[in-house]
């Protein structure tokens, strides 16, 4: 097991310089999610308009994998319809079970190495679960 397989350069770049970190000043769909087994937490905000995720921002506390994954997710969903965003979340889950889906935002592929570190999969999926929760709750409550 090689550390470089997990901590790829692109992951460390997102960890060091997270994209879309922060909050929106005006209204946005907000969701908080934590991982009770380890204490990682993410606070995600989505700008949804006409069924499109215009922008996403996050704040969080967690390891390099969870924060890099959140950074990548907010980049990947930008401009996607909610259905496309949900599909991205599904594709990410399937990558965590060892499948090899394609991602238009290729940085995400760097996280495929997490599958070799089963204890860390929950770190990688936290932000994506927050995305799903945010979209589904918004759909339910309008």
């Amino acid at each position: 097991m090689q550390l470089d397989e997990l901590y790829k350069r692109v992951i460390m770049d997102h960890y060091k310089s997270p994209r879309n970190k922060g909050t929106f000043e005006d209204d946005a769909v907000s969701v908080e999610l934590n991982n009770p087994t380890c204490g990682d937490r993410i606070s995600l905000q989505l700008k949804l308009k006409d069924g499109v995720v215009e922008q996403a921002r996050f704040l969080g506390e967690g390891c390099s994998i969870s924060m890099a994954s959140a950074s990548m997710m907010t980049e990947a969903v930008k401009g996607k319809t909610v259905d496309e965003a949900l599909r991205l979340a599904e594709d990410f889950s399937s990558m965590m079970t060892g499948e090899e889906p394609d991602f238009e935002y290729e940085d995400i592929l760097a996280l495929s190495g997490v599958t070799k570190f089963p204890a860390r999969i929950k770190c990688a999926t936290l932000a994506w679960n927050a995305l799903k929760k945010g979209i589904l709750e918004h759909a339910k409550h309008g």
Partner: protein
Amino acid sequence: MIAPEIREHFPILQQTINGKPLVYLDSAASAQRPVQVIEAIKRYYEHDHANVHRGVHTLGARATAAYENAREKVARFLGAASAEEIIFTRGTTSALNLVAASYARSVCGPDDEIVITPMEHHSNLIPWQQAAKATGAALKTIPLQPDGTISLADAEKVINARTKVVAITHVSNVLGVINPVEELAKIAHRNGAVLVVDGAQSTPHMKIDVRKMDCDFFAFSGHKMCGPTGIGALYGKKSLLERMEPVEFGGEMIDFVTLEDATWKDVPYRFEGGTPNIAGAVGLAAAIDFLESVGLDEIERHDREITAYALERVQQIPGIRIYGPTAHRASLITFNLDDIHPHDVATVLDTEGVAIRAGHHCCQPLMKWLGASATARASFYLYNQPDDVDRWIAALIQTKEFFGHAIG
């Protein structure tokens, strides 16, 4: 220090992890088992198993004898007055829940108080939160000093005539603080309260004497002291246990049953509804035999020396932050390294074959007090040697270099 040959009793330690010999530094979460414990359980299942306290046949008698001998052994091990004061439980959590659900709920009312500390494990916090909510009692805390210890002066202020229960951990699983339980027992008793001690982290590492401590209840787990998982015990003073109602009902715990009503067996059986973990009790007895054959005083000295060595070495790493007091501490070191998240530290260490804990250690309020969302923890036991500490230190330096390079 205990000779390194002790490792030969632990089959699990004879393996490589990720191509490196295993260094197990997570005994505070769960210790490993010597072959003596594994063999005792195997022997029990191969020769003596049947249900307890009901069979007329030979195996039933043997199983009952094995189970009750284990109870006697636990009573002696803890310094209890008699085996009737020992209730077998699934572990510390269920032991503390029993006291909270039965004793606390029967003695507490809206004008009463339950006293805890911010350093409690969730298992010695949430049962009291729930008991307080159910009875209307107030939950009070003895504040922590800057180094994470408590002061007896504060304890005197917080514990008063309204206090019915004081519940505290003997040894903190995060800070390594060893609490002054004997003095707390005196303060509690002077105010008419009982003292409940969470002994999960102390029992594996030091000689326990519940009568000298004069606590009213004491809980511990087998798996942290080389015994099986799923078995532990609650010690309670007999006079208190006799006043308590059972919280689980069923077979084994009844005296006389009609369709309308039932009466209970004497203590401790009224608290052990259902078929108990007989093999677990047998394994726990074997673990006690093992620890006593090494010597609890010897184990305490070994753990103190290995921890002192580890502290001395780890403090030399630039960017290391150690949580908890520097003196009079138990055999665990909770730390953070630079700004590297403890999960990342634990993952890098694992690739070097070094197993440590990372996370909130079931102590979320304490993590908040420390101002850390998570921490890493290395804990030591009788099978750890200075070379384990050296491997840990080398892996930490490697982690620092790796992350310094990756994000520097």
